[in-house]
């Protein structure tokens, strides 16, 4: 791959993660546990969608084939999306969503921090903006994890179950593929194994404060980066893409 192609593919992958988690959070609108939490959820979803737009626009620029942010978001087949399986998982209850946020954001923040120092200015600029947003998201979701873990017997049991259920989607976050390697060698991108050490320490600290147990090492699901998704994903895309698919070429 040329350097520009590496950047285009990597930015698309970052955009996919942001878009898909944003789309999942949007499904939670008007279903929050308290009004104040509605505002928070919408703020975070807006941040992610904003990040997706920036990453996709930059991908289109690097690719140089005239694709817009919407072409990336709405007009690719399922196997071209390279988001983590974790972010496409259905929302479940509030505790499930909070655990998903904690696991994802603690990884995403560590990744973005490295990317702010990468040698491509386009990526590092977007990463710097996203970093500030995600740092706040993580503060919010980890505080919530502590409240739920420490709160009542019911909340403790529920959120421990969420953690156990979602743990198997964390493995692929740290398994580099060719694109990760190229990003690292050509642009000083993240070293995923190093990231894993930091992530484990960060998550262990939050989980301990929440009086929860880290799940045991176990079989890990993977396939997101290769475009092999879970069954839920096709439905998410069908819903998200319907307008662009039904009315090809229309302006909205």
């Amino acid at each position, binding site marked *: 791959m040329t350097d520009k192609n590496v950047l285009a593919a990597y930015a698309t992958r970052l955009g996919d993660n942001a*878009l898909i988690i944003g*789309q999942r959070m*949007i*499904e939670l*609108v*008007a*279903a*929050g*546990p*308290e*009004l*104040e939490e*509605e*505002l928070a959820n*919408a*703020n975070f*979803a*807006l941040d992610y*969608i*904003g990040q*997706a*737009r920036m990453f*996709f626009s930059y991908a289109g620029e690097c690719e140089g084939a005239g694709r817009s*942010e*919407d072409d990336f*978001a*709405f007009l690719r087949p399922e196997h071209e999306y390279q988001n983590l399986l974790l972010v496409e998982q259905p929302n479940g*209850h*509030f*505790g499930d969503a909070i655990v998903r946020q904690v696991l994802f954001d603690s990884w995403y923040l560590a990744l973005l921090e490295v990317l702010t120092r990468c040698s491509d200015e386009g990526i590092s600029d977007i990463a710097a903006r996203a970093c500030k947003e995600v740092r706040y998201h993580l503060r919010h979701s980890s505080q919530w994890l*502590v*409240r*739920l873990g*420490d*709160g*009542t017997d*019911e*909340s403790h049991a*529920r959120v421990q179950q969420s953690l156990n259920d979602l743990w198997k989607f964390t493995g692929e976050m740290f398994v580099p593929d060719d694109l990760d390697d190229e990003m690292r060698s050509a642009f000083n991108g993240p070293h995923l194994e190093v990231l894993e050490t930091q992530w484990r320490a960060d998550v262990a600290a939050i989980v301990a404060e929440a009086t929860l147990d880290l799940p045991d090492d176990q079989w890990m699901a993977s396939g997101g980066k290769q475009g092999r998704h879970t069954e839920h994903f096709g439905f998410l895309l069908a*819903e*998200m893409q*319907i*307008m*662009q698919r039904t*009315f090809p070429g*229309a*302006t*909205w």
Partner: protein
Amino acid sequence: MYTQGLDQSGRGDSAKSGGESKEQLDAFQARIDAEEKIEAKDWMPEAYRRTLIRQISQHAHSEIIGMQPEGNWLTRAPSLKRKAILLAKIQDEAGHGLYLYGAAETLGVSRDQMVADLLSGKAKYSSIFNYPTLTWADIGAIGWLVDGAAIMNQIPLCRCSYGPYSRAMIRVCKEESFHQRQGFEIMLTLCRGTEEQKAMAQDALNRFWWPSLMMFGPNDSASKHSAQSMAWKIKRFSNDELRQKFIDVTVPQADFLGLTIPDDKLRQNEETGHYEHSEIDWQEFFEVISGNGPCNKERMAKRRKAHDDGAWVREAARAHAAKKADASAAA
């Protein structure tokens, strides 16, 4: 309007006095007439307090339920830009609900109580949110017509005699200024698009026109609480005045879009300059207000489910806060 239920339910309730003396009432009215703002802890007639609680909480409920019809299109928004704009707008509605509940709470009613009244069906919300959003154009129509109608009502509320309500409305109006514009822009884009898109826009106008006019509430002759609310400067214009104003500004906008208002009797009176229109189907209005609209049950079911699903979460947060408070007291 968002509080059109006031014109129907609990008739006579606000007319009950709280045993105030005539001197007190006169002194209060004198403050109102002098355009003084009434603040939370000031003396006020019981009926004034009750009217405000009902009006502000209905307004808040309308904002909260109003998130649903638009939220229905969030996951399917046709572009990322539209998705972000719609989400920001719906978030504003949650915020406005929150400001309004806060304003009502200053009158001594808890948010829990107001929410309970909504969930039990005792409290009303605007009839408009019981209509379905069937196409993307409905999102445009809601912004253009429903927010347009809401703004007509809300701008005078910025000068309402009750300080906390008036301040909340000032914030709401400031934030809402983009809502109607984004709706009109959606309609404009559709009308300049393909034939299919233009037909979608016309269909949305056909379905939302009459329900938008109903938002202003019954005709003045049938509106029970107007006179007292006007005297107290809670309300500054009558239902019919505001409705007429809305029609007069909206018809030329529809012309600009190249859309047809679904009323074959609509015509401009050359002498007055105002548009005259067919009679509103008040039967439909009363049905929707009393729970028989196309989506009343779905809206309430979704709100109840969110509330019920959140119960263990709210409780966990309280329990954690209590533990932390105990721990720091013991330290």
